[in-house]
């Protein structure tokens, strides 16, 4: 009920009103997120809640504890000379940013574990073949021949019956034309 009390009616500043109110009981609000309290009381203390946010976000330590930062030391041992400085920044930042994001729907966040990934590759439709783009880049000389084969198959595959298991192995190129 006190939430509805309007600051302007009392003639006191928001800070005075805040101090006049009794403390919340620690026992009842043991695990309270203070910022959420200020959010709920934002309409009563519009200015003070902004000040509160600013003061409450001052960090006490520079030692970053989030696990993603642990990577820092590893970067420096593992890739010391091989990464350009720009590259390090791209990796570190993207990694930490994506950790908090769940990007478009079913695409999972950064916690992809290797097992899930393997399952994905294994279940990856046998009917789809390497994209054109990668051939153009031609990063791997050894595989170029294989890639070309795959590519032709891809083109063939498109028309094939994607549902049958046989499609991937017993496909006949001539059928297409």
């Amino acid at each position: 009920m006190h939430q509805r009390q309007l600051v302007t009616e009392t003639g006191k500043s928001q800070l005075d009103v805040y101090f006049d109110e009794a403390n919340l009981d620690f026992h009842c609000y043991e695990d309270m997120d203070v910022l959420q309290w200020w959010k709920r009381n934002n309409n009563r203390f519009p200015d003070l809640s902004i000040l509160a946010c600013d003061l409450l976000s001052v960090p006490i330590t520079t030692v970053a504890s989030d696990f993603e930062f642990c990577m820092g030391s590893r970067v420096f041992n593992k890739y010391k000379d091989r990464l350009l400085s720009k590259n390090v920044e791209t990796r570190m930042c993207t990694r930490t940013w994506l950790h908090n994001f769940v990007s478009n729907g079913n695409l999972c966040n950064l916690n992809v574990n290797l097992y899930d990934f393997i399952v994905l590759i294994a279940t990856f439709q046998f009917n789809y073949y390497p994209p054109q783009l990668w051939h153009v880049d031609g990063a791997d000389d050894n595989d170029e021949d294989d890639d070309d084969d795959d590519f032709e198959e891809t083109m063939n595959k498109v028309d094939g019956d994607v549902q049958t298991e046989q499609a991937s192995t017993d496909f006949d190129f001539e059928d297409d034309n």
Partner: protein
Amino acid sequence: MLQQNMESDSEEVDQMESRLVHLCAFVILANDFPFHHFEDDAIKDLTEFLNPNLVMPPSNVLEAYVSDLYTKEKDKLKQQLATIPNKISLTFELWESCTTDTYICLTAHFVDADWKLNSKLLNFYLVFPPTGVYMCEKMVELLNDWGIEKKIFSLTLDDSSENNVLQQQLKTQLGLENGLLCDGEFFHAHCFARILKLIVEEGCKLVSGAVYKIRQSIMFVRRSKSQKENFKECIEKVGGIDSSVRLHLDMTTRVYSAYLMLESAVKYRRVFESLHLYDDNYELCPSSEEWEKVEKICAFLLPFSETANMINGATHRTSNLYFLQVWKVQCVLIDSLGDEDKDIKRMAERMLTKFEKYWEEYSVVLALGAVLDPRIKLSTLAYCYSKLDASTCERKLQQVKSKLYMLFDKYSSKSTSSGVQRTIQDQSSSVPLQNKLKSLSQGLFDVSFFFFLNWQFSFLNLFNLIAFLLTCEI
């Protein structure tokens, strides 16, 4: 019909391709693999086994994809920083690579639109030479790039001469552009973890001889399989040892590793002693006096280690919680001044000097955060101050109050400067506070304080809580 099939299928193929690139990029980022990870022979064998027709994206595609992701996410973050009404606090760290290149690691802490505390890494930037002046130049550039040069509330960094130069220059620079509140009075924040580190180091220094012996002992036990077997036998012979605790070795890079080493070794004290009798090759067992001293130091350092864990592990890392933690550290130090052991007493004195230097400069910002916790406010703050030193309590409280009113003045759109004066003189709000103080000084332990302490130490076991309450009350 055929044509349609072709189109929809190739669309699908494209989708799967981009999904694969996306997932590969995420695997690389999440595990910090090199970009050519999927070109590795072993990985190739694996993917070929799983799906013989699949060719994994090459490194340049992945690199381009990650770089594209970076740009997109950076724009998103920039947008977010621009739209929040709040100010941003920064932490500044220097990382050194094996090739002794120095990198600036700049992190922003802010409250987002959902009123959640966010920490985002802004830059990880190679800087050379790492001098204060140059770093300041770079910092201004980076802040301008992010468009937040007028939105900075504070900067937390370690104490070092270069960092101090940086901090002062940056303060002046941002101040010139009118980007700081109250002429930057709250701009500079110190790193408390560093103070804790200094304190723990000071403690370990006192037993440096024993630290050396314990390190050698652990290395001796770990040296070979037969040594490990011997040690295990000794554990069984001695009996009653909780062998689930691992023996830690200290590492120079980790802050609390020396403490962790001592703590783990103390638990095996009797095993080491029995091994000493049994194995002639084992010479460096600490003497019983040394063991006792180590035990004492460990008990003394326990609250500091817990504070460190709390700082790292808190779910809501808002500054309101820190004040109480820092206050607790100070309480323990002040209590230790009366310790009967001369060494501990001297150590506590040295630690307190280090601590007070920090406290003098930084306590106000911490206290302001605490006051804005509706569970703490001024009354709990008064209690904390009076516990430390009753004579300066009122003055400190007034100081915090006036600082808060001064700051609030900047935030409130309607207030006038006379309004600030009036509110500070207004004593009505501090009457219940004085009553409370009175009751506390009479030794009545407020029930709510019990709950408050209970809450605060919920991560400790009951024994620790009781022990602390006792020391607190005396």
